[in-house]
């Protein structure tokens, strides 16, 4: 009997051991998926409804500022194209979780998917703001992210822009473009000055005051300087100004005989493509900024101008009328391998997307309108139509938005457009005309 028991025990042990050996290796389990999702083709993703109540004042008494910050953040989120802002009034009391929960519940009922709780401390000239972003689609109102920002009182709008950009990052994976500037030309005929404003047109300020003609501002890739053409010395020469350094003088980039114009920065900021007519007719050159060395890229009897770099820095698109009417061409950065991109039409002002695709240009056929074409030459399509002249596009650094000038309201003003052409917003409203916008890279 004992022997039988022992045998049975052994048998059991053997069975258990062998089963243990069959168990899957731990590696297989480490590969486990954290979450499963579906993606269906059939509809475009909708805008996210977001609530931005007035900021909560922790220190200080400037409730107008608390209100302003919320409204700037809300406007930024609207302009981003990702959000639809749920109307809100009033602020959330400080340190009151119950009130916070109640506020979010009310917003959730109103259809909000997310809520922004801004907390503001004003200490003299210093501003500190904290942004807390909540998910309102679940009853827990889970905190998505929180971040603190600092600024000075005169820079309060930038504080709001930075908060908006952070919110866009949290939802899209890429920072927004609210903390950027627009440079553009303002003025009645006879005098044109360059103005720098927040990207939304607010806080505009002159950066030239020479009562001359100043044209075609273009931001450098580090967002610290602006290249432009000016007649301040009597001839169209190319200069560079530093809008954030009051004491720094304007630098002369090119003052050759003839026209010095159409600056186009290379993506790394080391080179400037430009148009010079010093050798007779306008040709495209590349200036190495560190050394002042000039290299000629085009050699043609026709006009070659308006160079724009590909984001890789390997190619340059430009305008040439060598085929009769002006068309868009592409060449390698050393001037070789020239090929024609657009055909049949009157095409100027090429602007290569910072994301690589597409290239925007202006087509004249009766009126001027914006068109887009892939750098390979396929699928040209019209972005504006039937609303006056629309031209002079400039890319936002995210490659999703454009600013341009339009006379659809009777005088030239600046507008925004999503690159799909679906939404357009007027940016400038002044009595003077606003033209030739350049959208800055994200500010440092």
């Amino acid at each position: 009997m004992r022997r039988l028991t022992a045998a049975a025990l052994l048998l059991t042990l053997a069975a258990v051991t062998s089963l243990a050996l069959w168990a899957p290796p731990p590696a297989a389990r480490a590969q486990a998926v954290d979450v499963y999702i579906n993606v269906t083709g059939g509809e475009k993703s909708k805008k996210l409804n977001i609530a931005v109540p007035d900021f909560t004042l922790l220190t200080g008494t400037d409730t107008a500022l608390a209100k302003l910050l919320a409204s700037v953040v809300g406007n930024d989120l609207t302009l981003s194209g990702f959000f639809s802002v749920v109307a809100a009034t009033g602020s959330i009391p400080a340190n009151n979780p119950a009130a916070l929960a109640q506020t979010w519940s009310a917003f959730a009922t109103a259809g909000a998917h997310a809520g922004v709780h801004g907390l503001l401390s004003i200490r003299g000239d210093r501003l500190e703001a904290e942004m807390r972003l909540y998910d309102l689609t679940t009853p827990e109102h889970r905190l998505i992210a929180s971040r603190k920002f600092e600024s000075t009182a005169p820079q309060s709008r930038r504080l709001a822009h930075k908060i908006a950009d952070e919110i866009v990052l949290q939802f899209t994976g890429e920072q927004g473009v609210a903390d950027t500037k627009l440079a553009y030309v303002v003025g009645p005929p006879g005098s044109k000055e360059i103005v720098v404003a927040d990207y939304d047109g607010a806080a505009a300020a002159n950066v030239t005051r020479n009562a001359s003609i100043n044209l075609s501002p273009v931001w450098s890739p580090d967002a610290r300087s602006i290249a432009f053409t000016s007649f301040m010395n009597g001839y169209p020469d190319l200069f560079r100004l530093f809008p954030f350094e009051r004491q720094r003088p304007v630098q002369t980039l090119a003052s050759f005989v003839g026209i010095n114009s159409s600056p186009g920065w290379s993506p790394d900021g080391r080179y400037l493509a430009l148009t010079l007519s010093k050798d007779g007719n306008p040709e495209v050159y590349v200036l190495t900024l560190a050394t002042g060395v000039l290299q000629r890229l085009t050699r043609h009897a026709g006009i070659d101008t308006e160079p724009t770099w590909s984001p890789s820095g390997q190619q340059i698109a430009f305008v040439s009328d060598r085929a009769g009417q002006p068309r868009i061409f592409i060449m390698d950065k050393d001037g070789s391998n020239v090929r024609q991109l657009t055909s049949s039409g009157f095409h100027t002002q090429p602007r290569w997307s910072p994301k690589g695709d597409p290239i925007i240009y202006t087509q004249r056929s009766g009126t001027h309108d914006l068109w887009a074409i892939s750098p390979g030459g396929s699928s040209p399509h019209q972005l504006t139509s039937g609303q006056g002249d629309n031209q002079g596009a400039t890319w936002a650094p995210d490659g999703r938005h454009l600013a341009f000038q339009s006379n659809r309201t009777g005088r030239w003003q600046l507008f925004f457009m999503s690159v799909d052409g679906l939404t357009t917003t007027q940016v400038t409203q002044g009595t003077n005309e606003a033209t030739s916008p350049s959208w800055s890279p994200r500010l440092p």
Partner: protein
Amino acid sequence: MALPASFHIGPALGRLRLPLAPAVVSAIAHVAFFAVVILGASVWTDTRTKPVFVVLTPSVAAVGSPRGEPAPPRVEEAPLRPPPTELPRREAARDLPARDLPSRELPQRDSVGLPDRSLPTRSPAPPRPADKELPATARTTPTTAPQTPIRREAAAAPPPPPLGAASGTSTGSGPLTLSVSDFPYAWYIRQIQGKIQERWLGRAIPGQQPAVVFEIRRDGRLNVLTIDRSSGNAYYDQVALRAINDASPFPPLPADFKKDVLRIGLQFVFDPTGG
């Protein structure tokens, strides 16, 4: 009526010898048998959890709704809440007190806005009594597509939260078994879906679609991207992979999600009705 003198109750049984050895053998044999059955079952079902994908109605987010073997029914506890200080106004769908304690690991509850109440989820942390309230519809609704047509707004509503570690059975034997799904960040999933959907939209083709597995790093960048189950058509597979590639970078991973990468199983579903 006297009983026969020889009729004794106690002593007769007392004389019976218990068959000890056979009993032991029998016990061991039973233990061995059940060990084999249980371990065997776990081996067959636990090996490399096959990513199986929940298919909800078009355009409704499906975040790990399990259709595995239902967990043993739980006792519905009466909602024990903390003394109501200032409870937010109650709304039809949102009757849970939300608190401003987002960083705390609150047990995940069923989401609002979707009729698809599959298994309620719980976080691995032992739920506090106040949070144990379970939705009344738990487990009464099949996890298949909801019968009522979902309004378009429902697309923006949150997907059902993923299966908590404690719910369901870890060795589920149903056709759909999730391994781990402690990712209760509904907004994050929604954003990822939206981004990929946008990129895939123009290239979606009717037919069998692939399932892919990919990873997102903490900073939102794409880490690994593979076909988990081919559509049988290399071109469709490539279109799906490219949609994910083009959609990256994704939002940074939620701060309180502790892993270095988020691993996602994704099923592309072509919807000929246009969503």
